[in-house]
């Protein structure tokens, strides 16, 4: 008698809103596969939307086959196809959405458009088992402090201009640091060898931060700013947990500084490793799994991508 898998829900997630293209498969909280490719530009150059879309276009079907093979699954085993609806760069978002829509129809499976930021949050919650943390979401494209309340991921504070990762990436470009594996990683390695702290403009306005005026910064200053606004949100919500998600969350110095603040408050710090804090397909699958299980589906006519998509626009039907 074969084991019944009636209770199990398998979701495949497609992510490609920036320079990473990832496709991941999740079955009831287990990551079955999560292959990913990164479009790396030469030192001194950032990545442009049409080139990034071309990169994703060239590899996406290969990555999809890998995701299925590594999970040991056939399309019939999938229950739902999740993809990133936004936010992000238009051309790469469209490239990925086209494949997701097509396979959803070929395989006869429902489609789910996922908010990229919520993908990060749900993956962080799954991996770390944090209960109801204040979330710091920091990446090349986004910088937000988020707390859950009454069916919304509320944005407590955010950057008033550019994302902290964008600031780090632009700095890396100016001094021509390699983009392999990522500019942020290479800044971190170089920063470890530094010993001189240089005082730079420190710009916090209440719950928000500004990074555009200080492109010649050092990690200490920007990370301190992020720790401050996270602490302020925690105080406001009476929260005893912090979860860091997004590519910049890989940075050990940021985790260390946040850890000091948490220890002082008797709070717990949660973070994931580079597999899950950097953009990946499984995080879209995980958010899709939550959404699908709570009864959400995206009709094809409504499956258009969008470059702007705020975290608090989504009704969080899967939490109380």
């Amino acid at each position, binding site marked *: 008698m074969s084991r019944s898998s009636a209770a199990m829900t398998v979701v495949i997630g497609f992510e490609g809103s920036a320079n990473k293209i990832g496709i991941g498969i999740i079955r009831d909280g287990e990551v079955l596969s999560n292959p990913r490719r990164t479009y790396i530009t030469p030192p001194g150059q950032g990545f442009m939307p049409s080139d990034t879309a071309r990169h994703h*276009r060239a590899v996406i079907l290969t990555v999809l086959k890998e995701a299925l093979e590594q999970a040991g699954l056939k399309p019939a085993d999938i229950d739902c196809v999740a993809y990133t609806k936004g936010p992000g760069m238009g*051309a790469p978002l469209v490239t990925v959405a*086209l494949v997701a*829509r*097509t396979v959803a129809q*070929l395989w*006869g499976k429902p489609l789910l458009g996922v908010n990229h930021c919520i993908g990060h949050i749900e993956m962080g919650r799954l991996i770390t088992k944090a209960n109801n943390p204040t979330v710091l979401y920091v990446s090349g494209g986004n910088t937000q402090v988020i707390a859950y309340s009454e069916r919304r991921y509320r944005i407590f504070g955010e950057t008033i201009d550019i994302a902290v990762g964008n600031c780090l990436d632009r700095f890396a470009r100016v001094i021509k640091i390699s983009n392999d594996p990522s500019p942020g990683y290479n800044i971190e390695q170089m920063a470890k060898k530094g010993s001189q702290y240089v005082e730079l403009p420190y710009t916090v306005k209440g719950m928000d931060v500004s990074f555009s005026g200080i492109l010649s910064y050092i990690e200490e200053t920007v990370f301190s700013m992020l720790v401050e606004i996270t602490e302020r949100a925690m105080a406001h919500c009476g929260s005893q947990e912090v979860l860091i998600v997004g590519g910049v969350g890989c940075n050990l110095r940021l985790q260390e500084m946040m850890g000091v603040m948490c220890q002082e408050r008797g709070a717990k710090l949660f973070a994931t490793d580079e597999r899950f804090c950097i953009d990946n397909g499984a995080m879209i699958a995980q958010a899709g799994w939550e959404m699908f299980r709570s009864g959400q589906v995206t009709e094809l*006519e409504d499956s258009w991508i969008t470059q702007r998509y705020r975290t608090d626009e989504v009704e969080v039907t899967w939490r109380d």
Partner: protein
Amino acid sequence: MSTDGETDHKTGKLEFSLDVPFPSSSEASIALRSLSPDREPRRGGISKRLTVTGNTLSVRWSADEARILRVSVNSFLDHLSLVLETMETFGPPVDSGI
């Protein structure tokens, strides 16, 4: 595929049409539903309409300038080729009766 471009002298707009044959009408519909949801990146000066008749996907553009038309048609053909390659790799559709 057949295409033709001409200027509609009444409205002054450039009209461009494209017909893509598929092995079945269900596959033509799949392509239509994958390619139609996203809006044109450039809001003004270009519009397109996708329809399916029998086994054929038809696309009709209306544009103010040739330059804008070229960008949209170019982009559409790239997207179409991705959808076709996806259908070749992961098709045929499940309820195709095969």
